[in-house]
C-alpha cells in the first residue's frame, strides 16, 4: 500500500460528530414536523449564503482531517514497507506545490523577489546588496520587471474564466435538476431563480457560490507560480498556512462546545429545576471555578500535559500525534473552564420556566422529573444554547489565538490562526512592515466567524415557533384558522359516545 491511514484523536471525534449529524439528519427526514422549521432556515437568504461559505470551510476542514502517512521508497531489512514519519492530510496532497515551495524568508504577496535585501558576492569579487529572486515565486518569468504585471493579469483573467465556467456548469446542473423535479422547462427554472420566486433563495446561494468559485479560480491560477498571500519568516506560503489553520479553528470551536455542552446543560438545568441543596452545590462549583483565572488553569494543565508527553515519548509515533493530543487536551480544558457562563444562563432561564403553568400542569399529571426536563425545559432553552454555542465558537477561535500567544496554546509545530498571529505580531514593528500574515489570518477568521454568526441567526429565527406567527401569520391567518367554532353545538351528547 502506498500509504497507511492515521486516525488522530481529534479526527476520531470529528468523525463521531459527522456521524451524529448524519444520524440526526436521517432521523429528521422521517419526521415532517421536525423538518418544517429547518425548511424555514432554507428560506433565509442571508442564512443560506452564510451556509454556502461555511460549507466551503467545512470541506477544507474535513479534507484536512483525513490523515495518512505516505510510504517511503526504500523498504526495511524484512522487506516491509516503511512509512514516513510525517503525517499528511488529503488537503496537504491537494496543496502540494504550496506546501513544498518554501522560500528563504519573507516575501510580499505575488512578489518575485524577497522582501529584504541580501548581500551577494559577485564573481568579480565585489559585493552588492539587492533583493534576491525567489526560488519559486515568479520563477517562470525571465524578466520579472517587464512581464510581472501582465502575467498576473492574464492569470487573474484565466482564473475568473475558470471560476465562471464552473459556476455556469453548477448553475445549469441545478436548474436541470429543478426542471426535472418540477416538470417545467429549463428556461422557466432559470427565470424563476433570478426573479427570486423560488422557495429556497437560490439566487443568493448562486451569487455566493459565484464569488467563492471565482476567488478559488483566481487563487488556483496564481498559486501555481506565485505566493498569493506572500510567505512568512521561514518562507512558508501564507495561503497554505491559512488553509491549514481552518481545521484547528473548527476543531477548537466545535469540540470544545461539544465537551462543554453536557456540563452546562445538565448542571444548569438541574440547578434551576431542583433548587435547594443541588442548586447550592452547583452554584458554588461554578462560582469557584469562575474565580480561578482560566489562563492559569489552562497553562497549568497544558504544562502538565507537556511533561507527560515528553516523559512518555514512546506512546507517540509522530510529531503530529503529540501535537494532536495537546490540541485535544486544550479543547477539554477550554471546555471545562467555559461552561460556567452558559450554565448560569440556563439556570436562570430554568428558574423562570419551572414556574410556568405548563410545567405545573405536567406536575399535576405526575410526569417524571426526567421527562419534564427533557420534554418541557430542554426544548425551551435550546435557543439560548444555540446562541451561546455560536458566540462561544467565535470566542474560542479567538481564545486559541490568545493562548498561543502566551505559549500555552496549540503545539508550536501545529499551524493555527493563533500561531500565525503570534508570529506576525513581532513583525508589525519592523520597517517596512510585514502585514500579510496578520491580514490573512484576520481575513479568514473574520469570514469564518461572520458566516457562522449569520447562519446561527437564521437557525434561531426559524427554530422559534413563535417567530413564525409574527412574520407569516397575518397573511395566512384566515387560511390557518378553521371555520369559526361554534361553542355549544359540537359537544357530542352522551348517546353518541358509544358509537
Amino acid at each position, binding site marked *: 500500500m502506498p500509504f497507511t491511514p492515521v486516525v488522530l484523536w481529534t479526527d476520531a471525534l470529528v468523525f463521531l460528530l459527522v456521524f451524529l449529524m448524519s444520524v440526526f439528519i436521517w432521523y429528521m427526514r422521517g419526521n415532517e414536523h421536525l423538518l418544517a422549521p429547518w425548511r424555514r432556515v432554507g428560506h433565509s437568504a442571508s442564512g443560506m449564503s452564510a451556509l454556502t461559505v461555511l460549507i466551503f470551510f467545512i470541506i477544507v476542514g474535513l479534507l484536512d482531517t483525513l490523515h495518512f502517512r505516505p510510504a517511503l521508497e526504500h523498504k526495511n531489512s524484512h522487506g516491509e514497507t516503511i512509512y514516513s514519519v510525517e503525517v499528511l492530510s488529503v488537503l496537504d496532497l491537494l496543496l502540494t506545490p504550496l506546501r513544498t515551495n518554501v522560500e528563504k524568508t519573507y516575501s510580499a504577496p505575488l512578489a518575485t523577489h524577497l522582501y529584504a535585501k541580501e548581500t551577494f558576492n559577485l564573481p568579480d569579487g565585489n559585493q552588492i546588496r539587492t533583493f534576491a529572486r525567489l526560488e519559486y515565486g515568479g520563477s517562470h518569468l525571465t524578466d520579472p520587471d517587464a512581464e510581472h504585471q501582465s502575467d498576473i493579469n492574464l492569470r487573474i483573467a484565466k482564473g475568473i474564466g475558470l471560476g465562471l465556467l464552473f459556476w455556469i456548469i453548477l448553475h445549469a446542473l441545478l436548474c436541470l435538476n429543478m426542471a426535472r423535479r418540477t416538470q417545467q422547462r429549463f428556461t422557466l427554472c432559470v427565470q424563476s431563480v433570478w426573479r427570486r420566486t423560488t422557495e429556497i433563495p437560490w439566487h443568493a446561494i448562486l451569487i455566493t457560490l459565484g464569488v467563492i468559485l471565482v476567488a478559488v479560480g483566481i487563487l488556483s491560477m496564481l498559486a501555481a507560480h506565485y505566493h498569493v498571500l506572500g510567505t512568512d519568516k521561514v518562507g512558508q506560503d501564507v495561503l497554505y498556512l491559512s488553509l491549514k489553520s481552518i481545521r484547528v479553528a473548527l476543531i477548537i470551536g466545535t469540540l470544545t462546545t461539544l465537551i462543554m455542552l453536557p456540563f452546562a446543560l445538565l448542571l444548569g438545568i438541574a440547578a434551576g429545576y431542583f433548587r435547594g441543596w443541588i442548586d447550592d452545590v452547583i452554584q458554588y462549583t461554578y462560582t469557584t471555578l469562575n474565580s480561578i483565572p482560566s489562563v492559569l488553569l489552562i497553562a497549568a494543565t497544558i504544562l502538565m500535559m507537556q511533561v507527560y508527553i515528553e516523559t512518555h515519548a514512546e506512546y507517540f509515533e509522530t510529531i503530529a500525534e503529540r501535537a494532536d493530543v495537546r490540541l485535544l487536551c486544550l479543547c477539554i480544558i477550554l471546555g471545562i473552564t467555559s461552561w460556567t457562563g452558559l450554565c448560569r444562563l440556563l439556570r436562570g432561564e430554568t428558574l423562570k420556566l419551572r414556574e410556568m403553568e*405548563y410545567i405545573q400542569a405536567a406536575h399535576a*399529571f*405526575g410526569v*417524571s422529573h426526567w421527562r419534564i426536563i427533557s420534554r418541557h425545559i430542554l426544548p425551551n432553552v435550546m435557543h439560548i444554547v444555540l446562541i451561546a454555542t455560536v458566540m462561544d465558537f467565535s470566542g474560542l477561535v479567538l481564545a486559541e489565538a490568545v493562548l498561543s500567544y502566551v505559549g500555552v496554546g496549540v503545539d508550536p509545530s501545529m499551524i493555527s490562526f493563533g500561531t500565525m498571529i503570534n508570529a506576525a505580531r513581532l513583525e508589525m514593528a519592523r520597517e517596512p512592515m510585514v502585514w500579510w500574515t496578520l491580514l490573512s489570518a484576520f481575513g479568514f477568521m473574520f469570514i469564518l466567524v461572520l458566516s457562522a454568526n449569520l447562519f446561527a441567526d437564521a437557525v434561531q429565527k426559524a427554530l422559534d415557533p413563535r417567530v413564525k406567527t409574527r412574520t407569516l401569520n397575518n397573511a395566512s391567518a384566515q387560511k390557518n*384558522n378553521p371555520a369559526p367554532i361554534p361553542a355549544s353545538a359540537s359537544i357530542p351528547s352522551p348517546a353518541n359516545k358509544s358509537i
Partner: protein
Amino acid sequence: MSVLLEIDNLRTILHTGKLPVRAVDGLSLKINRGETFALLGESGCGKSMTALSIMRLLPDVGEILSGSINLNNADLLQLPESAMRQVRGKQISMIFQEPMLSLNPVMTIAEQIAEVLTQHFRLNKPAAQERILQLLDQVGIPDAKRRMHEYPFQFSGGMKQRAMIAMALAGEPELLIADEPTTALDVTIQAQVLDLMREIQRQNHMAILLITHDLGVVSEMAQHIAVMYAGEIVEQSPRMHFFERPAHPYAQQLFASLPDKQKRNHELAVISGAVPSLTQAFSGCRFSDRCHYAMPRCHDTAPQWHHISPVHKVRCHLYDLSSTLIDITRIPEATSVPASPDAQEQKPEPLLQVSGLKVHFPIHKGFFKRIVGQIKAVDGVSLHIAAGKTLALVGESGCGKTTVGKSILQLIQPTAGSVRYHQQELVGMERQRLRPLRSQLQFVFQDPYSSLNPRMRIIEILQEGMDALNAAPEFTVGTLAQPSAAPIFPHETAVDTLLQYVGLPKEAKWRYPHEFSGGQRQRIAIARALAVNPKLLICDEPTSALDVSVQAQILNLLKSLQNNLGLAYLFITHNISVVEYLADEIAVMYLGRIVEQGLTDEVISKPGHPYTQALLSAVPQIGKTSATDMIRLKGDIPSPASPPTGCHFHPRCPMAMPVCRQTYPEASTLSATHITHCHLYSQEHRSNHHEH
C-alpha cells in the same frame, strides 16, 4: 357644550407581515369638554391604536394614512413633532393598563412627576415639590409627603395606578386617555380608582376618553359610548339610550353573553367565531359573519349610519328605512336548554374534603438564610366539594386562592392540614403513590398563553397526561377499537375525541399552540385536563384573560362538561358574575382564610360578612347609575407576612368594633349551609335567638 376633540375619518394601519393591518379604519368621533367618552370593544378591534393615534405615539410599524384629529380646532396630525411634545402631557395625557410597567422602577414617584412638570411649566424646585404633594394628595395617596420620595416597588397596585393618574394630571390636561385603567386591578381597588377618576373629572372639568372592554365599568363611568368593532365604530349613543336599547346586533349579543344569575340554568348566548382579521378588505358589514340577523345585503354592502334618535346612531342594515318595523330589541334567546336537572337534592358524600389547610412560606434573611418569618398564604382553610358540584372560591388577588388550588393538588406542599379525596389523605403521600390519584384531580390554569408548552404540538400536549398516568379518557372506549395508523401516537383517536369534545376540529392536533386564539387555547387546556378522566377540575380563573364573548363560550363548555361527565369544579375567581352563573356554593376568602361560605343564593342575596358585602357592591353593574349605595373599602389588602391582629379585615372594615382587633372570630352559623367569621354576626346571631 363645546367640542374638545374631533376625529374625522381616521385611518391607521400597521405594517406587520405581508399585508397591512387596518387597525383603525375610518373612525370619526367627537368628545365634548368635561365629558367621559367610552370606547368599548373586544381585544384586537383597534381601541388602543385609536388612543395611540391621538397621541401620535404609534409603534414604528404604524402609520396614519388619512383623517384629521382636531384638538381645540388645531389638527394634531399637521403639527411638527416638537409642537406635539407640548401637547402630550399638557393637553392630552394618558394612563395605561399595567401600572407595574408604566412607572420607571429606578426613579422615585416624585422624580417621575417632576419630569412632567419641568417639561411643561417653569417651576423652581420648592414650587415643583409643592405641586407634586398637592397632586398626590388629590389622588388620595395617604401620607403623601413621605411617600412621594418612595420608589414604585414600595407602592401597591392600586397606589401605583393612583400615582400614574397623578402623573397624568400634572400637566393639567384637557383630555385624559385612560386605556383599560382598571383591568389589572381588583374589584375593590377598581371601585376606588373609578371613584377617584370621577371625582377628579368633576374638579378639573376634564374630558376622559375611557377605553375598556368592561360593560360594567362603562355603565358606571361614561356619559357617551361608542362601540368599536373590527377597526370601526358601529354604534354611538349616550349612556342611557345605549343601556336601555342597544341597537347594533353586536352590542346586543355582548349583553347576552354576560353571565349572571338569571341565566343560571341556560346556556349563555355566544357570539360565534372571532373578530375577523383586519388585513382583509371588507366589502359588507364587518359583523355579518357572526350576526344572528345577517341578511344577504349585509355581506356585500357596507352599512351607513342610521339615526335612531338625534343622539343615537348605529351602523346596521336592520335600521334601513324599510326594515325599522322589525323588532330588533329581541335578544336571541340562546338555546335555553335547562342545564342542570337538579333532580336529586340529597346530601351526597363529599368528593374532596379539605380541613385546616395551611401553606406558609418561610422568609429567609441574612447570610445563613435564617427563617425570620412566615408568609401565611393559606392559613387554615376548610372546604368540601360534592361530586358533580361547583364550589367557587372568591377573593381578591393575593388572598391565597390560587395557593389553595395548587396545594390541594400537592403542587405546593401544605404546611399543615389535610386534603382528603374519597377518604384518602393526600398530604404527605409519596410521589409514587400519589400518581394514580393524579388522574382524578386536574388543574386548568389562568393564562392560556403560558399554560401550553410553545414547542409541543397539540397532540403531544394532550398525550402527555395519558402517557404519564397510563390513563385514557373513559368516554373514548367505544371509538378506540381500531388501532390507529401512526403507531407513534397510540392515543390518536382519543385525542380526536377530546378535541371534538371541547369543540375543536380534529386537524388542530398537528398544530402548535401559538396558532390558536386565547379561547381556543383555553379549550385545549381543558381538553388536556380531561384526557386523564378526572372527577374534579380545579379551574384557576380560566376566563379572566379572555374577552366577554369568548368567556361565554368557555363557561358554556364547562357547564356542559359538568352535565355530561359529572365533573366537580373548584372554581377560583374574582369575577362575581361568573360565580352567580356557574357556582352551587361560594367560599369567600380574605388574607388566607375563608370568611364566609354558603350556597350561592344565600351568599349573593344575603351576604353576612362586611367584606363580602363590600366585594359584591364594588362590582360594577350595568344599570347601576349612582354610586351612593356602594360600600367603599379603604386601603389595600395587608401583607400576609404580618396579618393584622384579631380579625384580618378590621383595618378596612366599616363596622369594626374593639373586639375585632383582639380575637379572630369563630364561625357563626347563619343557616344550615351558610357560615361566616365575624364578631358582628356571632353576637347578633345569638341575640336574635334570645329575641325570638
